[in-house]
Structure formats: structure tokens, C-alpha cells
């Protein structure tokens, strides 16, 4: 339960003052949407239930892995429209960080594939964290969270960044105080959680944010059109790339398995750390299994073209380099002292992919882009702070608020 350093508090105060003085405190939203986000049907009991053409297909052992026409893993759905919309306000509200400078969206921005375009994310006060921000698209289907797979629900996951001193730096007490102290939020929580008396609870806050995150569905890419049977959806080059992707030479699809393009397992692939950084033990630490030293959760590749740089700490700037990593030899990038103590995944080998094959893989990966259901950023959030707060550098110049990035 870390408290933000006093210098940050001072800066937060400055920021807040600036926001107030520039008149950004527009009228706070008083209503929550009564309809579901796209991709969901409002059913009896005010539940938003996921609908997708993938529900026309089965999957072996209900595992949600297979080929083009395979059913998805079971999804987290059934939230109310109001809970989802409340979660959207919370997600974009910098009120959730210790110094009110950043929101969830500062590292998971909708215009950057719900990531931040950075090799490693930056928390309050410019603190760099150890790993990259994973995309949030399709998290409704995931069974574990974080690069090292240490959380098994969205609620469990979000307390990490919310309270980590290097990330949002808040605390349960601060969160309850700030949200509970905001009349608009109090009213909105009453709407989203009918029958609930008293101020918003932590569980309700987490649940609402999870509701919003679980509404981020991307299943209508050009690849999906191909999968559903329209074979003209992909160009010849892209089809070649698809066949390389699923061949047992490149073996991409063995771990990035359709339809989600992840098999949700932890894999040790021997990615280098950029800039001479020390090895990240990954899932070894969180699982206690030495066989998972340097192991990370296989990420989904949906919308992957939107989320450069790649890998857990941004070792590769572009997809071509990321793809090439897999053909440079088993363990080629490991420090000598790690080679004897790491168990590199058996699928990592020397496929000897030709240059044109790597190009085709990149072509194919770009067909996994679909942002048709991208939610809008609220024009205002209940705190009155500027929605999103600090914006990722990739979306433009650094924040121009004087003083924030100095000292």
C-alpha cells in the first residue's frame, strides 16, 4: 500500500489546478448507457451476452483452440450495460492513480491497440516498469493475466497496476476515498449496482472495470472473414503467410493457436532483453517452477500490428524482427550463463525460414487487425479530470503541462 512520494503529490496538485484553470472540468456524466456495447445482446436480467459467428463452431474438449472454424474459449460476459459503461468511465479516469495523472488508458490506449506503443510502460512520475503493457483486446477469453500469468482474473490482475508504486501508485484507501468522495460516482454506482447501499466498494470498482475490459471484442478481421469461408478476404501473399504461420516448420500456430491466436500457456522462448537489461525470470518466480525460467504467457496476436514494439520488454520494434527471432536458432539470444539453466520450449528450433517467408508472415499478421468495436473515450469523466490523463508518447508530443516532466 504505497503512498505516492510527496513530490508527486505536489505535481498532481499542479496538474489538477491546471486542469481546473483551463476549464476542462466540463459537466460530469450523470447517466449510464442502457444498451450493450457492440458484440453483445441485451438479454433478460439486464445481461450483456456475447454473440459471435464463432459460436457456430465447436472446439475439442471446449478448449477454444484449433483451426479457423473452431469455437472460442468460454468468455467472461453477462455484465449489465450500466456496469460496462461505469467501467469505461473508471478506465479513462486519472482519478484512479495516486497523483491523478494517469488512467488505465495511459498504458492501454484504444488508439494503440489498448497498449501504449512503448517497450516498457511508464507509471506515475515517469517511472519505467519492467515489462510492456499487454493489449486488452479479447481479455474476456483469457484464463490468466500478466506476462508471467500470475493472476487468474481481471479483478486480481488490476490490483497490480492500481497499487504498484511504479504504476498507478494508488491504494485501496485512496481509491475508496476518491471515488466515494465523488458525488457523480456515488450516483453512478447506485445505478450500476441497484440495491446496493452505501459508498462504492472495492469489489464494485474492480467488477465495473472488468466489465468494461471484457467488452473489448475483436473478432471481425479480414482473417475472420476467411475463416468463416470467404476465401477472397485475403490476398495470395496473405494466404501464403497464413500457411507459413500454421505450418509445422514455422510452428507459429502451435502456440498462437486460432481462433484467439494464443493457447494461453506459458512458454520459454529465449527472447533477449533489450539494451543490455538483466534477464527477466518471468514465470519461474511466480510459479516456483525452474523449468519456466524466462517463461512468459503466449500473447494473442489479434490486433498485433497495432501494438509494436513486441515481446515482454519490447525487444523488437517491428513484426519483421519479431518473426525473424524464431528462425535465428534455438536459444541464440540467451546469455551464455543462462543456456544451461533454461529449458527452451520444444517448438523453438531452426525452421530456416527464407526472407520472403518472413515477409509473408508479416503480411498475414496484419490481417488480424479489427477495431470495429473500439469504444469511444468519454468526453468527460466524473472526476472532472481530463479523460485518459497522460497520453502515450506515440500519440503525439509529450504532455505540454509545464512542470510535469521536469525536475
Amino acid at each position, binding site marked *: 500500500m504505497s503512498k505516492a512520494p510527496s513530490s508527486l503529490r505536489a505535481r498532481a496538485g499542479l496538474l489538477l489546478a491546471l486542469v481546473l484553470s483551463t476549464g476542462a472540468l466540463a459537466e460530469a456524466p450523470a447517466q449510464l448507457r442502457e*444498451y450493450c456495447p*457492440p*458484440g*453483445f*445482446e441485451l438479454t433478460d436480467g439486464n445481461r450483456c451476452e456475447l*454473440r*459471435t*459467428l464463432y*459460436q*457456430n*463452431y*465447436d*472446439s*475439442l*474438449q471446449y*478448449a477454444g*483452440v*484449433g*483451426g*479457423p*472454424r*473452431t469455437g472460442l474459449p468460454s468468455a467472461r460476459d453477462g455484465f449489465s450495460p450500466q456496469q460496462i459503461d461505469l467501467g469505461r468511465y473508471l478506465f479513462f479516469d486519472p482519478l484512479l492513480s495516486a497523483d491523478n495523472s494517469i488512467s488505465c488508458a495511459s498504458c492501454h490506449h484504444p488508439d494503440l491497440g489498448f497498449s501504449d506503443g512503448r517497450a516498457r510502460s511508464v507509471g506515475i512520475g515517469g517511472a519505467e516498469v519492467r515489462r510492456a503493457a499487454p493489449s486488452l483486446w479479447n481479455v474476456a477469453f483469457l484464463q490468466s493475466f500478466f506476462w508471467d500469468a500470475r493472476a487468474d482474473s481481471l479483478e486480481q490482475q488490476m490490483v497490480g497496476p492500481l497499487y504498484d508504486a511504479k504504476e498507478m501508485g494508488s491504494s485501496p484507501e485512496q481509491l475508496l476515498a476518491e471515488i466515494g468522495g465523488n458525488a457523480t460516482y456515488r450516483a453512478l454506482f447506485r445505478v450500476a449496482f441497484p440495491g446496493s447501499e452505501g459508498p462504492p466498494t472495492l469489489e464494485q470498482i474492480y467488477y465495473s472495470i472488468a466489465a468494461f475490459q471484457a467488452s473489448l471484442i475483436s*473478432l*471481425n478481421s479480414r482473417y475472420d*472473414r*476467411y*475463416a*468463416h*469461408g*470467404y*476465401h477472397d*478476404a485475403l490476398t495470395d501473399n496473405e*494466404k501464403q503467410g497464413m*500457411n*507459413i504461420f*500454421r*505450418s*509445422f*516448420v*514455422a510452428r507459429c*500456430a502451435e502456440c498462437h*493457436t*486460432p481462433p484467439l491466436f494464443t*493457447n*494461453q*500457456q*506459458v512458454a*520459454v522462448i529465449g527472447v533477449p532483453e533489450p539494451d543490455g537489461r538483466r534477464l527477466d525470470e518471468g514465470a519461474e518466480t511466480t*510459479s516456483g517452477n525452474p*523449468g*519456466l525460467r524466462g517463461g512468459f504467457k503466449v500473447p494473442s496476436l489479434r490486433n498485433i500490428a497495432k501494438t509494436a514494439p513486441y515481446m515482454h520488454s519490447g525487444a523488437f520494434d517491428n513484426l519483421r524482427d519479431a518473426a525473424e527471432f524464431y528462425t535465428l536458432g534455438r536459444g541464440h539470444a540467451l546469455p551464455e550463463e543462462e543456456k544451461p539453466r533454461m*529449458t*527452451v*520450449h*520444444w517448438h*523453438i*528450433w531452426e*525452421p530456416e525460414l527464407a526472407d520472403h517467408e518472413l515477409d509473408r508472415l508479416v503480411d498475414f499478421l496484419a490481417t488480424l487487425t479489427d477495431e*470495429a*468495436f473500439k469504444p469511444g473515450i468519454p468526453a468527460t469523466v466524473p472526476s472532472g479530470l481530463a479523460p485518459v490523463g497522460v497520453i502515450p508518447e506515440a500519440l503525439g508530443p509529450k504532455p505540454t503541462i509545464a512542470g510535469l516532466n521536469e525536475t
Partner: protein
Amino acid sequence: MGKKLLQIIVAIALLVAGIVVGTKFAGDNRATVVGDASRYSNATGSGGLLTRSVGGSSTGTVHDVRDGNSIQAAVAAAEPGDVIRIFPGTYTETVYIDKDDIVLSGVVVNGQWPVMEGNKELNDAVLYSGNDITVENLQIQHYKGNAVMGQAGNNFLIRNNNIIDTGVYGIFPEFGTNGLITHNVLSGIEDAAIYVGMSDNIHVTNNEVFDNVAGIEIENSRHSIVENNYVHDNTGGILVFITPGLPIKTTFDTIVRNNFIVNNNTPNFGIPGSTVAGIPAGTGILNMAGDQTTIEGNVITGNKVIGILITDHMNAPNVTLDPGADPSSDEIAILDNMMWNNGYDTIPEIKALKTLELVDGNVEILNVGASANSCILDPDKYITVGLKSFGTCGFATTADVSTYLLDEPAQRREIAAEDMGKRAYYGVCAGCHSYNIKMVGPPTQIIQALYMDNPQGIVDYITSPTKKRDDYPEMPPQNYLSEDVRMAAAEFMLQVKQ
């Protein structure tokens, strides 16, 4: 003596004359049907024909592909139900089948085969994801990855193929339910020649596999029968595995019976880091963590390290434990097998275990690690190590189980038009259309007022839209949805209420 010789000469002369006469004057007898179709009809066993629920239906058009043509072009033109006949010639391509019910059938003419040739440059010969696929009568050679790889296709039939040095695997169905692999010959594969991964209800029968690292592997799969195969001169013969770290984490109910598992002593040329790279050359049957494996009626001879090896994950090399997978081999049943001359030149680890148990002679069956509720029918018949915990099997045969293939093909489910329409409407259309809110496209309410009882009008419009409204962008065509999905979506759109 002389008379006898003369008789023989005369007899031969008559025989030759008969052949000449027979060839010259008998004509082409192929039109004559010899033997009644019912001659053996009672002998097919209680399970009926193995092929009854697998493979393509062959109810559609026949497409002929000849030397110089592209097989893939025929696949692209084919509709479900069609047959693609491939005539002798050399085909250097990767064929991928992402549609259902297609038969890829080689035609062998005067002993000449259609050959798919990868030149060690192409990755895979045949990739399929469709259901009800048949791949048969092909010679497939020199690919880098696989001869035939299936991803999530159910009801597959892969038979009568001659597969030579196709890289990592020969025949590799993954994520499939209900499949038959029969009468294939595979050699020179650097991992498993026949590799069934993460699948259910599989039958592998009457194949010859030799000169591979692994002959036949059943991995993270359930309800499989491996029978009547000739498995020789591989590094390891037949493997039944749970490989950790995969999304489907169980293997159980495997019957390995009536196979010839002979002289599997080929030096291991597996890819470094692969699971099979750790298999000692000279292994007959290897069960790693698979449960309910029954081994019956096999002829297991000349495998120099061990005839049957049962192990768990803790004692296996190259394996990272997976908390989601049970690491031990439980409920193993070793029924009567013909075992001879195995374990004659074994590895130090087995020698050490022998010493520990004070066993003399060559070990034919070894178990390492805990193995709950396992049994052997006749423990005194073989030299064994590590089988003290095994009980005596209360059953002697699996004969009553003729196959685990399904009576009806898997996933032939009908989807109600309303569900189809609902999934398309919310899953696709809702990206631009909301019931009563202006989004990218006009609200559904307005569309309902416009089209009323005319779903076909919507189908026609969304198939090739034109710009209609100044205040909205032109709609992109939705022709990538099939005609029936478009109609179902239109019908649903006209009756949705919120």
C-alpha cells in the same frame, strides 16, 4: 529320372502356352464382377466398417488434376462433396483445404503414382482445417514440415499414402475428433511418423512406419486405438504421451494391440530440444504420463533397450512439469504380448535399476515412477523392473472394442437460423448499427421501417451497397458472409426489439 524331367518340361510348356493363350485370347476381363459383394459381409465385426463416419462423401463433382496442373487450383474450385483426382505426375506445391467434405484422391496408373515433391523447400504438402476430409493414394516426399497436417478438422480419413522424409512429421492431425489413419507407409521422419496430437476418437491401423525417430505417437488425446501396424527400425516404436505445456492436458483410454514392434534401434536423429530427442534408441513402446493405456497382443522383438517402458514426467528427460497435467502413468494394463529378445543392450539407467531390484537377464518391461491401479496379466512371463505395484489384470482382452470411431460424423450440427442471424447481427452488424442510436450506420429502427417484411431487400443491399445517405458513409459490402448468413442476419435485424 529322364522321364520325370520330360514330364516337368511338358508341364511347363503347357503352362506357358496357357498363359500365352490366356493373355492373347481372353481379352479384358475387368468388366466381369467376380465374387458376391456379401462374401465377407458377416466378417466386418460388430463395429461395422471403420470408414463409415470418416472422410469425404464423394457426392459432388469430380475434378481431375494432371501433371502440370495445380492441385490447389482444383481445391479452390471445389465445393463440399467434391472429389479431386490427382493423376500421376510431380506436384510441387502446398495444398491447403479450408472447406468441408473434400476428397483428395491420387490415381495410381500402371504403378505410376502422383508425387507431391517438396524439394526440401516447401513446408507442408497438405494442410487441412475442414471436416470430412480424405487424403489418399499419394506419394509425398521431401517436405520440411509435414506430409499431411490437420488443424481442427473432424472425421478425417488418411490412407494409402507413401510418405518419405517429409520433415518433422508425416501424418499429423491436431485438434480433431473422429479420424482414421490406415494403410500408409512412412519413413525417414525426424520426429513421429504418425503423430496424433490433442485429438479424440482416433484409429491408427495397418500402417508401416520405419526409419523414423518415433513410429507412432498418441499425444494429449483420448479414446485411441493403435493396432495392426508394422513398426520397425525406428528409434522408438509406439509412444503414448502427455506432453506438458499444451492447452489440452490429458491422454487416456489408448489401446495398443496386435502391432509388430520390431528392432526399433535406429540412432536418434531427432531435432535437439524436441521431446523425442530424449528417447533412447532401442525402445519398443513408451508410455509417458498417459492413463488407461492397454497393451495387448503385440509382437515386440529385438528392441535393444527395452520392450515396454512406462514413465512419469519426473523421470523423463527434456520435460517441464505442468501443474495442469497429471504427471504419472496410471491404470496401465499389460495383457498378453509376444515379447522376445528385448533389452539386450540397454542403457546404464536401466542397468542400475536392475541391480537395485537384483534382477538377472534382459529387462523387457520397465516402470519408473508411481503408477496407480496398473496391472499386468501374467507377471511371471517377462523379466520386469518396477512393476511391484502392478496388480494382476482382471481382464484378458480388448477384443470387444473394435473401434472408438464414432457411429456418426462429429460436428454435423444444424444451427438454427435465429441463432445464426443473432450471432451475425450482434457479432458483425452491431459494429455500425445500434437499435435506436446513430452510430457509423443508421439505427436498426430506421432500417426496420424501410424494409419491413423484405429481408431479401436487405440481403441485396448489403451484398453490393451503394451510397444512400449524405450523413452516413457508404456501407462496405458484406458479401464475405455466406448467402444464408446474410439472410439470417437480415431476418433477425427486422425483428430485433432493442
